[in-house]
Each structure stands twice: as structure tokens, then as C-alpha cells.
């Protein structure tokens, strides 16, 4: 479904991603692990078209997207849930959701989908008239996920959804991610929290200084000696 082949990205003279290849198949939940400055966020930005790779190709459902603008990527069916949520603080919950449906023109379908995310997150229905910035961090995360869903994505890319959340909301967030995946949405989960991510993922990739150093099934990664050393026995 999503395929990166030999992608290299740089910011000016500084190369961040080195010949990165990665695949997410239809309906799969894949996690991308790595420590600070390993290139996780740059990978996400490259997929979304916020930066363009200088070498390599990215294809989504057979179509090349490595030269696409972020708007085109979203229209193609990839919805991002950004790091630290990035909801619009001065827009109401309802307006935030409408922004998620920005690329769509079917008013009736949008209304229906908003109702459906309200059913999924009843708290958002309660707070639909409240400004996004007045929600707590965990509530904002729910809003960020709901907003992404309104684009009717075929695939979600989530950047560190557990960051800065209370343990309760981390668990809740991972349950939601798993639920969405079971409904058939492919998910690329970019995470530092390797334990939690591997527990729900099908497969995983490990990034180190911009290169993929490991890729295997989630099960094998959990037991991999290098993983155990680097991430799991902190």
C-alpha cells in the first residue's frame, strides 16, 4: 500500500535519511521505532510531502507521491496525526473536526462521519462547542485522531501519539489505534515507546541515525537481542 524505496532526505547540507526502504501493506499496523534524532519525524515529513526526498521513491497504492504536496498526499488517502497533536487551539472541537474533512465536498457524508466519531469519542460530542485549546492533553489526542479520521483515510500515520500523555491515556490511545486497525485502516505508527508499539503492531522497523538497522515481525523484534538491549530493558 505504502512503499518507500531507497529514500534519502536532507535539510540543506545535512542528510538525515539514508537509503530508507519501508513497506506498509493493506490493513497492516507497522511501527517505526528509534531514539531521539534517529530520523523518525523526518520519515513522516517525507511521506507527507512536507519535505521531498532528493533520492528514492515513495508510492501509495501504486501512485508516486514523493513529489506531491501535503494536500495531495491527504487527498490520496493518508491522514497524519502529528506529533504533540497540533490541534487548532482557537477553533472549537466541531470546527477542528471540520478542518479534518477539508479535502472532502460531501456535506452529508461529513455530517455522518462527525456523528460517527462523536459515537466513538462521546467526550468530543459533549465538548463540541469548546475551544480545542481548552481540552486536556489526552482529550486533544482523541480530537487529533478524530480529526484525522474525518479525511476518510485509507492509512493513518501517527507520530508519537503517546508522547506527553498520562499512562491511562497512553493505554487508551493504543487501544484506539488497535481498534482502528482492526476496522481495516493501515497504520504506520512512529513511536519511542517500543514496548507498547510492538505489543499491537504486526511488523516493525528500527531506525538509527537515519538508517533502518532492523526490520522484522513485532514478535521477533521483541525477542531480538539488540532490541532488548537498546529499548526494552531500560
Amino acid at each position, binding site marked *: 500500500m505504502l512503499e518507500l524505496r531507497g529514500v534519502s532526505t536532507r535539510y540543506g547540507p545535512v542528510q538525515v535519511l539514508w537509503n530508507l526502504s519501508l513497506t506498509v501493506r493493506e490493513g497492516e499496523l507497522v511501527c517505526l521505532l528509534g531514539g531521539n534524532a534517529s530520523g523518525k519525524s523526518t520519515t513522516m515529513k517525507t511521506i507527507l510531502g512536507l519535505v521531498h526526498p532528493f533520492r528514492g521513491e515513495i508510492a501509495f497504492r501504486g501512485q508516486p507521491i514523493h513529489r506531491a504536496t501535503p494536500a495531495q498526499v491527504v487527498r490520496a488517502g493518508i491522514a497524519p496525526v502529528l506529533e504533540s497533536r*497540533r490541534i487548532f487551539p482557537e477553533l472549537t472541537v466541531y470546527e477542528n473536526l471540520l478542518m479534518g474533512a*477539508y479535502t472532502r465536498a460531501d456535506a452529508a457524508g461529513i455530517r455522518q462521519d462527525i456523528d460517527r466519531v462523536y459515537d466513538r469519542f462521546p467526550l468530543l460530542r459533549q465538548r463540541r462547542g469548546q475551544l480545542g485549546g481548552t481540552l486536556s492533553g489526552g482529550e486533544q489526542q482523541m480530537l487529533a485522531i478524530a480529526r484525522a479520521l474525518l479525511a476518510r483515510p485509507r492509512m493513518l500515520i501517527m507520530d508519537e501519539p503517546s508522547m506527553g*500523555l498520562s499512562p491511562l491515556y497512553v493505554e487508551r490511545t493504543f487501544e484506539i489505534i488497535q481498534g482502528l486497525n482492526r476496522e481495516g485502516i493501515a497504520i504506520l505508527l512512529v513511536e519511542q515507546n517500543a514496548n507498547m508499539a510492538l505489543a499491537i503492531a504486526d511488523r516493525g522497523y528500527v531506525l538509527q541515525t537515519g538508517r533502518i538497522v532492523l526490520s522484522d515481525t513485532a514478535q521477533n523484534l521483541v525477542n531480538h537481542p539488540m532490541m532488548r538491549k537498546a529499548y526494552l530493558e531500560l
Partner: protein
Amino acid sequence: MPLYEFVPRRSNWHAWLPVLLGLLLFPLLVQSEYLLNIAVYAGIYVILTSSLNITNGYTGLFSFGHAAFYGIGAYTAAILATRSGIPFWLTLPLAGIVASAFGAAIALLTLRLGGIFLALVTIGFQEIAYLVILNWVSLTRGPMGIPGIPPATIWGVALSGNRGYYFLILALDTLVLFLISRIVTSRVGRAFVAIREDELAAQSAGIATFPTKVLSFVVATFFAGIAGGFFAHHARFVSADSFRLDETFAILTMLIVGGMGSLPGPVIGAVFLVVLPEASRFLAEYRGVVYGLILIGVILFRPEGIAGVPGIIRTRGALSRAEKPSAEEGQPA
């Protein structure tokens, strides 16, 4: 509902209809040409301030060249009316179209820049526009200005006193504010606010941010041109000195005092700062001091302005309604 959220709708007619009726009755009660003249100027600044609010308030762009587009509109109307004899009803929209064409050109060239860089480029454009008007004598008559612009006409009747101009600018203000309210409450208007709030998140929601910012600039400069066209036919004389950087700052001051990012904000700011210097004439030379003190007071105590969106300028004053709502955790890195 706080004032800054006010949007005129059919359902809240009781809030805006009395104001509109009061404004319609105003010239019947007031006979003084002087007072009516002030009211007409307030009306022109309502358009200028409300249009600047689209870029600087809603979309969060820092444009400092609004008077240039105002001037381009005024000169367009003046040249077309005096040289080609084009009637008022055509020069007015043409003034808007020419100004927004310049707006589009500037936007396409500069909106890749953000923040302070955009501000500097628009100040540069402002100065260039002034110098071109001043030196292109064959087109603009340079420092001599363009006199003898025919008055505005309503159904073929030329307006003579300020009463006619008052009703005309009232109608124009109503139309412009109605159009702006429709724009900012639409999908595109929400995209403007989304870009102001978080450009990266806006992009991620699928907003093509660059064309949307250009659109915001084009709409704002269109209305500035319209205001210029009206000004030319009202003053019946245009000169480059009316459209300098200090004029931009006057409009910007009205916007900041009135409040950015809301519909009533710029209207309140424009009327307040047009009326204030006139109302304080009795203070003679202390007039400037009072004006300055009020500005300082607003900045210190209520940086979002009288009716602006709280926290729109990332500061908070003693009289502000609300703290900027922000997540207690996880601010964007």
C-alpha cells in the same frame, strides 16, 4: 456570547438591525457637514481595517503595505474617471480589481516568506508604490496629484453633499462586511484561521496553504482598492502623500486597538480612532498625548484589542478576557 464571536445572521437581527437603523437615521438628525464628513471617513476606514483583518487577523500574515493597495485603488479610479470618463459604478469595482491584481502579484512573490520577512517585503512594496506614483508623472501627475475627479453618482445624479456620500458608504460598508462575514465563516475562512493557528497542522489537514494565503491576500487587497476608489470620488483629489507608510500604520493601529480576528473588532477600532482625534480637539496640543496614552493602555492592558480574539497576539493583558487556551502539556517542539 463574547463580542469577538459576533457574526451577523438572520437569527440575531436584534443585535445588528438597531445599529443599522440608528446609522440610517444619523444623517437625518445631524445636519453638520463636518460631522457627516467624519462619519464618511470612518466608513472608509471600516473597509480598510476590516480588509486588513483578513490577512493580519484571520490568516495571521504580517502585511504592512495596505495603504499602497488603498492608493492603487484610488489612483485607478482617479485615472479612469478623469482620462477615460468611466462612470463611478465601474471605476469602483475596477479599483478593487486592479488593487487585487497587484495584491496577487505581491502575494505570489512573497508569501513563501513568513513572519517578519513578509512584513519587511510589504513595507518595501509600500515605499516602492509611493515612489512610482510620485515619479510616474505621465500617468499620475506625480507630486501634483489628480484633481477634478467627478463625484460619485447615484442613478445618474451626482452627489453634492456629505449626506449622499454617507448613505453610499453605509451601503458599501454593509455590503463589504456582509461579504467578509460570509468569507470568514466559510470553509475557506476556517482554513485562514487554521493557517494562523498552526500552519503545519493545516497542511496536514489537506489545506493547500500557499494558494489559500494568496487568496486571503487577494481578497484583502480587493477591498482596500474598493475603499481607495470610493475615497477618490469623495475627496475628488488624490495625491501620493495620502497613501504612505504612516497611513498603513494608522490602519494597522485601528485594527490592533479594535481587535484582530473578529468581525466587530476592526469596525470598532476604525470608528473609535477616526472619531477620537476629532472629539478631543478641545485638548488642543494635548490631543496627541491622549491618543498615545490610549494606544499604550490598549497594548498594556488588553493586547488583543477591544473586541479581538483573546490571545491572538501571544500575550495577555490585565483586562484581557481569557488566557490563551493552551495545552498544559506537549507544546509543539
